[in-house]
């Protein structure tokens, strides 16, 4: 412990963290989030017959639907995660990343990869792997990018002398998981495995992308930022062990649950169902741990906007996972598979949970990155409430739509009946989406005004604190 204390006194946080780079990662994340949300809006308008841009090849809603999901995964989430990692990994290990030049290279290369993915999809070159529509010629480059990211962050983690804090477990594993997942999902079904076996692979890919890339990085960041913001240690170290190892073991085992009732052998489908239900118990331990942590400081949810983003996301996470455990059963699947229920579920987890956490991190970090307080707290409140209400309405609305669609289909009424019956839900969804757009616009305007004006804060709060002393 003595060397850590020494480090703390001698190391200048600015030597550890490249604040400019973190800010740029966040900025690009917001750019791609805007692109993704516009894509989603276009598809939503198409479904309610209000699309003003019909018959334009490059703006075809089918293509933009893929840009929507890919921009969220690789443009928004990946960029925001990279920014947050550039901030938190050096602070936890007290060592800078392997190479600052490499960090810059990764930044530029990643934007090129995401942009060319979007352009490739726009020009109709999508690959037939859901969430891996990245055109095949970009796949090897993206793969290389992921390996460089791994090297850049693994070096400081490997050099750190102390046993790693929980957050670092969640980072160590996801540096090896994404390259493996990416290779599995993008190369195997494309070049080697066709048909049903390939279906099992792509199911595992969609699943691992959420479970072994987005989820562990998200939770790792929560384990890092929540104790800092609440100024107290995590409630139970033992529970965090259960959470991490439970996730690492059970999560990847449930890949096939995306393709229940396909020709994939039933015993594998049952296995995936059981593993998915097991995850619900693991998730419960993690959520209990975090609510144990905030116990006694509950007012922080009102006073601190980042803490509010974090804990709202956690409540949504619990709902998502509870939903998972129910909808994965074959009984539920009969009704809701293929319907908007699943779309609602996907939005709840990707936007309501991980994007909320990253928004909270951005709200907390931007003043520390550009050295100015937020221009307007009120706009931050609008951002939160418009996003949270919009997302929740969208989730409930699409869930209901899914139940209706499922019953329409099973009743053997003509197909158009299900489409017409979905209209009220789809129209509601457009407005829920517009609320989210409004929230984002508040945030972007606030950020712009903060950057342009605002006032300097003291250097202490601008640089923030290094890791709190472990309890």
């Amino acid at each position, binding site marked *: 412990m003595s060397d850590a204390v020494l480090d703390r006194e001698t190391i200048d946080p600015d030597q550890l963290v490249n604040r400019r780079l973190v800010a740029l990662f966040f900025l690009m994340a917001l750019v791609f989030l805007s692109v993704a949300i516009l894509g989603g809006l276009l598809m939503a308008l198409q479904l309610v017959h209000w699309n003003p841009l019909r018959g334009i090849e490059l703006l075809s809603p089918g293509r933009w639907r893929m840009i929507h999901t890919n921009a969220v995964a690789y443009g928004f989430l990946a960029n925001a995660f990279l920014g947050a990692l550039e901030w938190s990994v050096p602070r936890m290990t007290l060592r800078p990343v392997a190479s600052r030049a490499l960090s810059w290279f990764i930044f530029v290369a990643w934007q090129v990869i995401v942009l060319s993915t979007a352009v490739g999809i726009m020009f109709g070159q*999508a690959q037939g792997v859901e969430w891996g529509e990245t055109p095949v010629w970009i796949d090897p480059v993206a793969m290389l990018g992921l390996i460089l990211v791994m090297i850049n962050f693994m070096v400081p983690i490997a050099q750190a002398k102390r046993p790693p804090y929980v957050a670092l477990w969640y980072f160590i594993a996801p540096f090896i998981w994404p390259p493996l997942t990416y290779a599995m999902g993008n190369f195997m079904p494309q070049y080697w495995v066709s048909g049903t*076996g390939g279906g099992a692979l792509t199911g595992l890919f969609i699943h691992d992308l959420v479970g072994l890339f987005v989820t562990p990085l998200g939770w790792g960041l929560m384990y890092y930022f929540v104790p800092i913001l609440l100024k107290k240690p995590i409630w139970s170290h033992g529970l965090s062990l259960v959470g991490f190892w439970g996730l*690492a073991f059970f999560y990847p085992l449930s890949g096939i649950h995306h393709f229940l009732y396909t020709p994939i052998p039933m015993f594998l489908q049952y296995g995936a169902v059981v593993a998915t239900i097991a995850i619900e118990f693991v998730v419960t331990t993690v959520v209990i741990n975090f609510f144990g942590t905030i116990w006694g400081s509950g007012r922080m949810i009102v006073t601190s906007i980042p803490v509010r983003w974090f804990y709202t996301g956690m409540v949504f996470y619990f709902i998502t996972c509870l939903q998972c455990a129910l909808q994965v059963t074959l009984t539920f699947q009969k009704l809701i598979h293929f319907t908007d229920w699943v779309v609602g579920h996907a939005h709840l987890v990707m936007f309501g949970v991980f994007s909320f956490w990253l928004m909270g991190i951005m709200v907390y970090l931007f003043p520390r990155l550009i050295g100015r307080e937020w221009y307007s707290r009120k706009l931050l409140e609008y951002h939160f409430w418009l996003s949270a209400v919009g997302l929740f309405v969208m989730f409930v609305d699409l869930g209901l739509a899914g139940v209706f669609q499922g019953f329409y289909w099973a009743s053997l009424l003509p197909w158009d009946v299900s489409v017409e019956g979905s209209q009220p839900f789809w129209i509601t969804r457009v407005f829920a989406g517009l609320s989210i757009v409004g929230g984002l616009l508040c945030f972007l305007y606030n950020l712009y005004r903060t950057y342009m004006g605002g006032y300097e804060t003291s250097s202490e709060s601008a640089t923030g604190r290094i890791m709190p002393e472990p309890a």
Partner: protein
Amino acid sequence: MFESKSGVFFIGGLAFFFLAFASNALVPIYMYRDLPEQPVRKLVNENLLYQFEDLHKRYQEPFEAAYGTPPEDETEAEAWYADRCAEALLRGRTIYTGEGCWHCHSQFVRPVSREEDRWGPVAEVYEYQNELQRPVLFGTRRVGPDLSREGGRRSNDWHAVHFFRPKMLIPTSPMPEYTWLYDGSPDQPNADGLALITYVQWMGSWLHSYPYYERFEPISGTDSGME
């Protein structure tokens, strides 16, 4: 072990990943090792050839602009049509994935929720062991109907009009227009348009029940059809 860096990396990062990979991916791949992947040329069957030749008759000019003219000799012409048809299938699949058709139309019929009545025989493994299912296009969402039993149910000219402007045939349809698959009007499908129609007509063309028409008996009252 469970709190050390190497433990997290090797047990969590590598071992658990490969355990899941083996059980969730390698097991089905191994189970179907005796069902080799059919090349696209073998997928051209009589039902599909009928549709492909029909495309030639209906859209002679665009068809010949895209594929040339068939040889005079009858047996040679047969082989020529089959070869061109295989090309069209591959190109059709590229368009089908590029336009994201598979995000609103699934390609498998489930054994539940009365899908057999609506679409026909439940999906089987052998139907997917071919070049056109690499990567497989099961799909995860149905805004429009499943397409795996679509072949032969509707005529080529129906599809030509439908891809051009779906609302002309189904006023309530939210499907986007694909006017760039045409040279200006629905009776002028270009090479891409012809390929996409061929691809859609292929689906289910290998089945004995081809073409499958739904047993359309809507149910009323309390029976939801979910049993």
